[in-house]
């Protein structure tokens, strides 16, 4: 992004909700083109971390740089500009249920591109084909399965071909085969198109496939960070246990 070798940088980020401190002095960076997985038990601040990257939640303290630009405190126009360079895959897809699948994928193109309707239709068809769902443009989100919704969410997130993709629990609620297919799609994006991936998950096999680097959050702190092999050999027993407990080894 913007030629910056670092796609995402967190610097001493703190976040509390009322008296509950969710993130405590969290710092890390994600190199451009890498796959970075954020792991941790439920309620450890994984989703908060990734939502802060796209400005849906503001930190109390610290800096968050996307492609070198600090997004903390940016106004709506500034945030919109940064968000155009990012895609976000939501845990439950968050498709617009009043729009068809095709309209969902076309939505960002209609809002932010100058393509004509024919070009948009062609691109929608291409994106859906890319996620293995050609020909379902006219269906409503309520008419397709959870795995298909996830893929449509991915197609929508990729509609503007962003160099950075954030994914919140992309395999949660899916059967192992579908979860693996989603992983393959994400991996394909990283390898073939150089898309930077930041993936929140507690699925260790999935993290191993996608992640060049993993980070483990525990009680709001970044407990460990490294390659899957490094985390397996971590000095923290908890990290080693986590990697084993989730079927990682």
């Amino acid at each position, binding site marked *: 992004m913007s030629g910056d070798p670092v796609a995402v940088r967190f610097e001493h980020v703190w976040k509390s909700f009322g008296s509950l401190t969710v993130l405590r002095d969290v710092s890390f960076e994600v190199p451009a083109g890498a796959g970075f997985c954020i792991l941790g038990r439920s309620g450890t601040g994984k989703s908060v971390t990734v939502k802060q990257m*796209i400005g849906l939640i503001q930190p109390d303290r610290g800096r968050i740089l996307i492609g070198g630009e600090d997004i903390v405190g940016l106004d709506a126009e500034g945030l*919109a500009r940064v*968000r*155009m360079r990012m895609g976000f895959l*939501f845990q439950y897809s968050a498709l617009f249920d009043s729009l068809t699948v095709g309209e969902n994928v076309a939505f960002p193109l209609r809002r*932010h591109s100058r393509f004509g309707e024919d070009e948009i239709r062609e691109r929608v068809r291409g994106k859906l084909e890319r996620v293995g769902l050609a020909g379902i443009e006219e269906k409503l989100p309520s008419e397709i399965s959870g795995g298909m919704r996830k893929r449509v969410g991915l197609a929508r997130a990729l509609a503007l071909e962003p160099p950075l993709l954030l994914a919140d629990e992309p395999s949660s609620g899916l059967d192992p085969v579908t979860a693996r297919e989603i992983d393959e799609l994400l991996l394909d994006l990283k390898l073939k198109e150089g898309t930077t991936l930041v993936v929140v998950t507690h699925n260790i096999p999935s993290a191993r496939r996608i992640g060049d680097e993993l980070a483990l959050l525990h009680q709001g702190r970044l407990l460990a960070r490294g390659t899957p092999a490094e985390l397996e050999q971590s000095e923290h027993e908890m990290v080693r246990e986590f990697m084993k407990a989730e079927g990682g080894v």
Partner: protein
Amino acid sequence: MAGIVSRIALGLAWLGDVATFGLRAIREALRPPFEGFEIVRQVYEVGWRSLPLIAAAGFAVGAVMSMHTRSSLKRFGAEALIPAGLALALIKETGPLVTGLLFSGRVGAGIGAELGAMRVNEQIDALESLAVNSFKYLVVTRVCACVLALPLLTTIMNFTGILGGFVAETVISGMSLGLYWDRAFSMVDFTDYVPATLKTAVFGFIIGTVSAYLGYNTTGGSAGVGQASTRSVVYASILVITSNVVLVKAIFFLFPGAGG
């Protein structure tokens, strides 16, 4: 006593939040980019789709009012005034208020539930993630649609109400449509129709703002969506009825002829 004071304080704080939300909607409505296409779509959703309800209700209200007016005026031998009395009552007060209340029931509940569901299903976050100003796209468009649609619906309520009154009257007395129409509008003035109908634009703003506020700020999953929908109807209806008192007084002040 302390409990009552604290509840009043909470109520006032809530009203302050809603007012701030409404002022933000006005501010953002005046700033480009404008969501013209989405406003038109919302006018269709909240206006056109409310038409059958408003027309049917107007017809029934007009017929019933005509029957009541007849039984009252008959005592004074003033049956000839039935069309004018009905038209004045409908245009000046009954039409705007009944339309406002029906609209808050149908549209207020719908906006509260729709935005509430979008909030809990992360669709509002999804809009933001796609670099779309969700407030402008969802809230401003719906508030504008309510402001534009309600005066039009009120006019239709008035028209179908007078038509309902005619049907009730002609069944009893055999009065012709031409005569009924002439008598109905013989005493209706410009200042009877315009301020009372424009008043409903304020009702539309209140209904749109309250329901959008409750939906947009929904928390608590599907239970929260249900609450947002119910509260949208209740709070919007109460505010429409109470604001009506102030608006009628303001109309009398600004248009002295309307009080006659």
